[in-house]
């Protein structure tokens, strides 16, 4: 198999959509693999007596990289956090998203909040502190699990003020 034939073979394989083709002719072996990510890889094993054809990884046009996996449907964070406001914990304590276990959370992703709105409760030294928002905007992400310990200044919510 000469170099022209190998090039044609690679083109054929890449168009065919198959992931892997292995051909064996006497002492000549060639395996053409198409990775999931898109780039073609050619593995050639050549019998030592024969002049080895050069491996040409760039011989085929790699298909355009598949679009990035879609973000998870829930609590999707935008790619850029630059314009978002972090609401931070004013104290060490335990973070609660609801006033009691059978109640709805004070805020959910997508909710609009205004200054003065209660957004969570932080329990410290058995005192329950209602934490009010100081900003207005839309809740983009809740950064802490309900009923978990939090540190001083730890970001709790991401809010889009626009």
């Amino acid at each position, binding site marked *: 198999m000469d170099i022209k034939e190998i090039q044609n073979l690679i083109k054929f394989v890449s168009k065919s959509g198959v992931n892997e083709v292995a051909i064996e002719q006497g002492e000549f072996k060639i395996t053409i693999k198409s990775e999931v990510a898109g780039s073609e890889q050619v593995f050639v094993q050549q019998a030592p007596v024969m002049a080895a054809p050069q491996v040409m990884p760039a011989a085929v046009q790699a298909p355009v990289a598949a679009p990035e996996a879609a973000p998870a449907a829930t609590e999707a964070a935008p790619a850029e956090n630059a314009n978002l406001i972090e609401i931070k914990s004013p*104290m*060490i*304590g335990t973070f609660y998203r609801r006033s009691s276990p059978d109640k709805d959370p004070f805020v959910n992703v997508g909710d609009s909040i205004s200054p003065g709105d209660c957004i969570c409760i932080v329990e*410290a*030294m*058995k*005192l329950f*502190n209602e934490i009010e928002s100081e900003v207005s905007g839309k809740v983009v992400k809740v950064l802490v699990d309900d009923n978990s*310990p939090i*540190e*001083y*200044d730890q970001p709790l919510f991401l809010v889009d003020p626009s």
Partner: protein
Amino acid sequence: MLYKRLERNLIHLAIVDSTNDYAANLIKTSEVPSGTTIVTSNQQKGRGQRSAMWTTQANKNLTFSLIFFSNEKIQKAFYLNIAASLAVFKTLSDLKIESKIKWPNDILVQGKKICGILIDNSFSGDKIQSSIIGIGLNVNQKDFGDLKEATSILNEIGQEVEVMDIYEQLFGYLDFYLNLLMESNYKILLQRYYEQLLGLNQEGEFESKGIKFRGIITGVSEIGLLKIQTSEGTKEFDLKEIRMSYPSNFF
């Protein structure tokens, strides 16, 4: 809860002369991690600034000494006082108690003392080898006898609280502020200390070496001396050299 600088290693003693002395002995005789705390419900001979006695009713108050290895430069020793003062201030603030820090590190509520701090450092070369941060915080003590200028958490918020709940919170803030110190955030620490410093930029009456004078506290020096602007210029005072009588409008 994850701590940045301190390990939880709590030694609870039913009765002890002084938790700071016990901690000093512990450092000499064994290897303990930074954060090791000696806490007692009954301290017999607590020491305060200038060797003043610090008495506490059994089982009512939080009395402990925390061992901390900072390897900080000697010149920065005062920042340990700042970190400890801010930790107490913040803990009280979480309980909705408004306090002020009286230089160097007493915590007052409306002019009444609620907490005293005594830090013993041992040095090696130009570094602080170990620090023992002793804190006495009045928690559930109601009656202070002749001590008119004392108060407690109970007296301020009108309800008893669990002494060890207070300890947990305070330990968390000690970790927070000592971490700021270890990250060399001196400016932030000093700024926050100034925000709570009693009498800053206010005129007060002072006494040094038997001489009374008026002046304005302008801050503390890098090594923790109190800076007072007087008619003869700004002077720096050591704790032993200065007495302050704060006017009531300070509180």
